[in-house]
C-alpha cells in the first residue's frame, strides 16, 4: 500500500526540478515572455534529454512506458517553474490520442519520433470542451474546414485536432490550407493560437469508439493542467512564507502577524488535500479507468478554485511587491489563470462531473 509518489517518481521530479532551476530559472522565463519568443528550444532540448516526451510512449515504440501519474509529476514541476514548453500536447495529449485511436501504422509513424524528441505537437481541443464564437472544425473526405480557437502549444510541428464529430486528426503545421495566428494572452509562458482550415488534408485517427478517445485525451489533459496549477500554487505558497519571514514591518517579520500566518495556513490547507486528489485522479487513468473521468473533472475544477484562491492570497501576502514585476510573482498568478480556463472552466466541468455520475 503506497498512496503517493513512488521513490522513482520523486526522483523524476528531482531531476526535472534541478534541470529547470539551473537552465530555466525565472530570468530565462522572463526573457522568453518579454521577447515574445515562439519556442524555447534550449528548455525543450533539456526536457527531451531527460526523456520526458517518451514518458507515456510504450517501449515498443521507443518510449519508456510510464504512466499518467509520472506525467502529472512532471507537469507539477513545469507549473512550479512556470516553464514554457510543448510538453502537454507533445508528450501527453498526442501520444494518448495516437495510442487510443491511431492505427498501428500511425503509431509507428508518430510515436518513435515523439519519443525521440524529433517532433512537437500542439492540440486543438477547445471546441470539444465548449466552443466559443461559433468556432468548430468539420471533417469531410479527409479534409478539414473551419476554425479552431485557443490551440494549445501553437508553435509546434504538428497539431492534434478534434472535429465537431468528436473525431481526432493529425495535421502537420506546413499542410496546405492552414492559416495559423497567434493569440496573445495573459500567460505569456504558454503560446496559444487559432488555426483556420481551408480544405486542409489530414491524417484521421480511426478510433474504435467515436468520442471515447477524445474523452480520454481531455481527461488526461485536465489532470496535467491541474498538476501544473498544483505546482504553481505550491510555489506561490513557498514564496509567500519565505517573503513573510524576511519582510519586516512594525519591527517584526510579517510572518509573525496572525493575519499573515492564517493566510498562509489557509493556502496550505487548500493545497494539501488537492494534491491527494490529483494523485488519485492521475492514478485512475492507468489503474481504474471507470473512475478516471469523474476524478479528472474534480481535479481540474477543484484545483482551478484552489489556484485562484492561492494566486490572490499569495499576492496579498507579498503586498505591493506582489503587484509589481520585480519579484515576478505574477508569472505564477497568470499561469494559474490560464489553467483555470483552458480545456473547460470550473463551472462547466462541475456540471460534467454531475452528469458523469448520473445526476
Amino acid at each position, binding site marked *: *500500500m*503506497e*498512496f*503517493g*509518489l*513512488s521513490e522513482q517518481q520523486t526522483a523524476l521530479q528531482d531531476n526535472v526540478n534541478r534541470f529547470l532551476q539551473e537552465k530555466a530559472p525565472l530570468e530565462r522565463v522572463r526573457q522568453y515572455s518579454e521577447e515574445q519568443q515562439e519556442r524555447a528550444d534550449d528548455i525543450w532540448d533539456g526536457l527531451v534529454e531527460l526523456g520526458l516526451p517518451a514518458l507515456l510512449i510504450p517501449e515498443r515504440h521507443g518510449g519508456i512506458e510510464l504512466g499518467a*501519474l509520472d506525467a502529472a509529476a512532471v507537469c507539477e514541476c513545469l507549473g512550479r517553474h512556470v516553464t514554457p514548453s510543448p510538453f502537454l500536447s507533445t508528450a501527453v495529449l498526442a501520444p494518448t490520442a495516437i495510442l487510443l485511436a491511431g492505427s498501428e501504422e500511425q503509431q509507428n509513424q508518430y510515436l518513435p519520433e515523439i519519443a525521440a524528441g524529433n517532433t512537437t505537437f500542439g492540440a486543438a481541443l477547445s471546441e470539444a470542451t465548449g466552443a466559443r464564437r461559433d468556432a468548430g472544425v468539420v471533417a469531410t473526405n479527409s479534409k478539414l474546414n473551419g476554425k479552431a480557437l485557443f490551440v494549445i502549444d501553437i508553435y509546434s510541428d504538428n497539431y492534434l485536432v478534434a472535429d465537431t464529430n468528436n473525431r481526432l486528426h493529425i495535421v502537420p503545421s506546413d499542410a496546405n490550407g492552414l492559416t495559423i495566428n497567434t493569440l496573445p494572452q495573459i500567460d505569456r509562458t504558454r503560446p496559444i493560437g487559432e488555426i483556420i482550415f481551408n480544405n486542409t488534408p489530414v491524417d484521421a485517427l480511426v478510433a474504435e469508439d467515436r468520442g471515447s478517445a477524445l474523452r480520454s485525451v481531455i481527461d488526461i489533459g485536465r489532470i496535467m493542467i491541474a498538476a501544473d496549477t498544483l505546482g504553481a500554487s505550491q510555489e506561490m505558497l513557498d514564496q509567500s*512564507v519565505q517573503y*513573510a*519571514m524576511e519582510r519586516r514591518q512594525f519591527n*517584526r*517579520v510579517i*510572518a*509573525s502577524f*496572525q493575519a*499573515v*500566518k*492564517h493566510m*498562509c*495556513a*489557509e493556502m*496550505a*490547507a487548500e493545497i*494539501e*488535500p*488537492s*494534491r*491527494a*486528489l490529483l*494523485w*488519485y485522479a*492521475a*492514478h485512475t487513468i492507468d*489503474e481504474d479507468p471507470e473512475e478516471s473521468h469523474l*476524478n479528472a473533472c*474534480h*481535479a481540474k*475544477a*477543484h484545483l482551478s*478554485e484552489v489556484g485562484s484562491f492561492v494566486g490572490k492570497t499569495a499576492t496579498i501576502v507579498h503586498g505591493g511587491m506582489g503587484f509589481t514585476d520585480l519579484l515576478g510573482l505574477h508569472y505564477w498568478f497568470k499561469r494559474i489563470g490560464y489553467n483555470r480556463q483552458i480545456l473547460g472552466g470550473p*463551472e462547466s466541468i*462541475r*456540471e460534467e*462531473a*454531475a452528469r458523469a455520475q448520473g*445526476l
Partner: protein
Amino acid sequence: MDLSYSPEYEAFRQDVRKFIETNRESAPRGEAMKSDRVQSWQKLLIEKGYTARTIPQEYGGHGGEPDIIKARIIGEEFARSQTPGGLGGQGISMLVPTLLELGTEEQKKRFIPPTLAGEMVWCQGYSEPNAGSDLASLRTSAILEGDEWIVNGSKIWTSTAHLADWIFCLVRTEPEAPKHQGISFLLFQMDTTGIEIRPLVDMTMARNFNEVFFSDVRVPKDQIVGKRGEGWFVANAILGHERDSLGDPNATLTRLNRLIELARQETMDGQRLIDNPVFRDRMMKIQARAMSLRFNDQRVLSSRINNTDSRLARMISKLQGTELRHDLEGLAIDIMGEIGLMYGRSDYLTDNGSWQQQYMYFLGLIIGGGTSQIQKNIISERGLGMPKEPKFEQKAEA
C-alpha cells in the same frame, strides 16, 4: 501509487469479514454502556484482536504487534457492515495510551484491564470555563494535605460525566510555577464526595456535555500519573490523537450520498431539486473537497506505513473536515428550504432532523478540539515554520 494490499492483508480482510458475518447477531444494538451484551462483545473482539490489538495481554489487551494496515482493515470492515466495533470513549482512546506510556506498573494493572473490558468508564476533565484554547491556564486546584489531594474548581465539556465511574483530570498543584509546569494529572472516582455534575445544554438542544464542580474532593495521593507538575506533558503525550477523528471524510462522503438522494426526492414547485444547476454546482464543489480529504487521509495512512513525511496533510484534516461538513449540512438545509427548518416531531421532518442537528454540531466541532483559529496557528507554526506570536504573557507575569 499502489492502492492494493498484499495477499496476507487481503486474507486478513476476509477473516474479519467472515467473523462479522458469523457473529454480528451477538453485537450490541444500542444497549447501555455496561450491559452484558456490550461487555461480552468487547471481550470477543479483544480475543480476536479486533480491538485493543496492541495492548499487552497482561493488561487485558490482545497483545498483537502494531500494524497500521490491519487496524485500518478492521475499521473499514466494521464500518462497511455497520457492525459496532470495539468500545471507544475517552478512557480507552485517551487514558489507556497515556497510562501505557507514563503510568506506573501498578496503575497499568489496576486501571487498564477493567477499562478495556468496559467495566470502568471514564470521563476527561481538561477544559474549564476560563481555560479553552488556552488550556494551560486552567485553575482547578489540588492541594496536598497529608495523603490526599484536596481538589477545588470546575470542568466543562465533560462529555460522559454523568455515566462515568472515574475521571482523569488536570489540576493545578504548583500555583507558583510557570503555567505549563504547575499542572498534575489525577485520577479519581466520580462518586467521591464533593462532586456535582450539571448537564450542559448545547445549541442542538442535546445534553451531550456537562459541567463538573469540585468542592474539597479528596483524592488519594498516589492517584497521580507522572510526577507532580508534569501533568501538562502527560496530557499532551497523546492529545494529538483526538483531532484526527473529527470531520472524517468517509462519513462526509456517505452523508453527501444521502444529500444527493434527498435532492432527488425533494421538489420545489414540482421540480426535482437535483435538477437545480446552482445546487448541483454547490454539490459538486463539496464532493471534490470531500474526495480530496478522503485521499488526503489515505495519503497520511500511507505515509505512516512507509515512514514518509505528511505532517501538513495531517494537520489540515480537522480544520478542513469540520468546515466542509458544516457546509455540506448547510447545503442540505438550503435544498430543503422550509423543510430544512423542521426540528421535532412532524410529518415533514426529514432524516430525524439530522441535517439541522449536524449543521450545528459541526459548527461546534469547528470550535471544539482546537478552534479553526488555533488550527491555523498550528499549521502556520508547526507546518510552515512561521514564528509564534511574540509572547506578552511573560512580560505581563514578570
